[in-house]
C-alpha cells in the first residue's frame, strides 16, 4: 500500500514538473477537455446523489450538525499540526496544539469547540500547502468526480496526509471507516453550501471556469494563510493607458 502511494506521489510530482516546464496554458488547464467531461459527470452525480443527500442532512438539527463538523475538524487537527510544524509556523502550530488539547478534553472528544471561545480560531493546513511553501510546482489543474478540483501537488499532498493522520494507524480503522468519514465530511460541506453553490451555478457565464477560478484563487489564499499582500496584485496600470481607446 505504501509503495503504491509512493508511486502515485512520484508520478504526480513528475507530471507537475513536466507541466511547469513551458507548457503552461490559460488558467493552467492543459487538460481542459477531459476536465470538462469529468466536471459534467460530477454535476450529474451531484444532482442525483450528493445534493439530495445533503438536503436530507439539513433536516438534522443544526447543533448536531455543528457537533459533527467540530468532531471531524478535531480529527483533522493532527494533520494540520504536522503541517504547521513543517512550514515552521510556530504560532499557528501552538494554536492548533492548544485547540486539539482543549477540544478533545473540555470539548468532549471534539464534539464542541470551546477553544474558539478562548480566541483560538481554527485554520486548516495540509501537505499540499506545505509543498507549495517549499516551492513544489502546482502542476496542471485536474478535475475528478467526487474529489473535485485539484492538481497533482494537492492530490499527492492529500495522500501523504493519510500518513500524518493518527487514525490511519488505529487497528479498528479500515477503508470503510475512512470512506465513511470522507463521505460525512463531503455531505456536511455540501449541506452548508447548498444555496451558495446554487447561486454560483445560476449566475455563472461558464460554471466550469468559475469553479476553476474559485478553487485556484482560494487555494492560493490558503497557501498564503489568508494574508493579502499588495505586492501580489496583478499590474493594472496599463489599463489606465487605454483611456483614448
Amino acid at each position, binding site marked *: 500500500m505504501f509503495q503504491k502511494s509512493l508511486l502515485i506521489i512520484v508520478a504526480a510530482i513528475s507530471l507537475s514538473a513536466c507541466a511547469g516546464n513551458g507548457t503552461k496554458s490559460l488558467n493552467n488547464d492543459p487538460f481542459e477537455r477531459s476536465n470538462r467531461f469529468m466536471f459534467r459527470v460530477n454535476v450529474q452525480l451531484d444532482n442525483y446523489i450528493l445534493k439530495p443527500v445533503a438536503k436530507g442532512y439539513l433536516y438534522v438539527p443544526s447543533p448536531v450538525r455543528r457537533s459533527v463538523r467540530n468532531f471531524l475538524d478535531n480529527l483533522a487537527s493532527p494533520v494540520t499540526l504536522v503541517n504547521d510544524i513543517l512550514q515552521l509556523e510556530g504560532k499557528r502550530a501552538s494554536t492548533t496544539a492548544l485547540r486539539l488539547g482543549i477540544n478533545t478534553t473540555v470539548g468532549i472528544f471534539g464534539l464542541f469547540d470551546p477553544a474558539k471561545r478562548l480566541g483560538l480560531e481554527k485554520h486548516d493546513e495540509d501537505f499540499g500547502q506545505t509543498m507549495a511553501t517549499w516551492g513544489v510546482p502546482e502542476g496542471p489543474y485536474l478535475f475528478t468526480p467526487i474529489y473535485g478540483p485539484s492538481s497533482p501537488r494537492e492530490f499527492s499532498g492529500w495522500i501523504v496526509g493519510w500518513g500524518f493522520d493518527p487514525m490511519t494507524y488505529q487497528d479498528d480503522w479500515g477503508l470503510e471507516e475512512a470512506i465513511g468519514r470522507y463521505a460525512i465530511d463531503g455531505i456536511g460541506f455540501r449541506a452548508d453550501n447548498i444555496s451558495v453553490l446554487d*447561486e454560483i451555478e445560476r*449566475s455563472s457565464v*461558464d460554471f466550469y471556469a468559475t469553479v476553476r477560478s474559485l478553487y485556484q484563487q482560494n487555494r492560493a489564499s490558503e497557501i498564503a494563510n489568508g494574508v493579502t499582500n499588495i505586492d501580489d496584485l496583478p499590474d*493594472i496600470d496599463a489599463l489606465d493607458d487605454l483611456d483614448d481607446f
Partner: protein
Amino acid sequence: MRAIITAFALWAFMLTPAAAQEADLAKAQAFVTALADDAIEILSTETTRAGREEKFGQLLNERANMRRIARFTLGQFGRKISKDDLATFEQLLGKFIVKVYANRLGEYSDEKVMVGKAQAKKKNVIVGSRIAFTNGRDPIDIDWWLRVEKDASLTLFDVRVLGVWMAQEQRDAFASVLKNNKGDINALLDHLRKQINTEAG
C-alpha cells in the same frame, strides 16, 4: 535661527510622505466604511428586487470605475474589440454585476462591516474588513481593492471574499467563454444578456 528653520523644514519634509500616506490610508478606510454602510442601507431598506438593483446600480456607477473593471475582466481580448463592442460590454457588465451581487449580498442586510487596516502601493490601496454575523456564523474577511484616480479621488476596483477576487473570477469565466468561441465578443455579449435575463426571471 536659520539653522533651526532649515532643520525644522527638513524634518517637516521628511515627515510629509509618511503623513500623507497615513492620511490616504485613513481616506481609503473612510471610503470603504461609507461604501459598506450605503450597501447595507440599501439591503435593509429596499424591499423589492427592482429597488435594490436600481440603488446598487447607482452606487456602483458612483463609487467604481466601470471602464477599468470592464477592461480588466476582458483581459487580453479587451485590446482586440471595437469601441462600440467595448461600450456594449461595459453596459452589460454593469447590469450583470448589479443583478448577481444584489442577490448574493441579500443575506448580509443585518450585519456590520468592521473596517481594518489598509496598505498602499502606487495607485493601489487595499483595505481589509470583517463581517461579523449575529447568528453565530463564522465571520467573513473581505478585502477592498481601491484605485487612486488622476484627481486623487478613490474608486472601487475589486472585492475579495474568502480569498477570491470577484473581478478576477469574472475575468477567468469571460476568458473561457471567449476562448471557446474563437475570441468572438458577440458570444460573450450573448452569454451576458442571457444571464441578465435569467437573473431577472
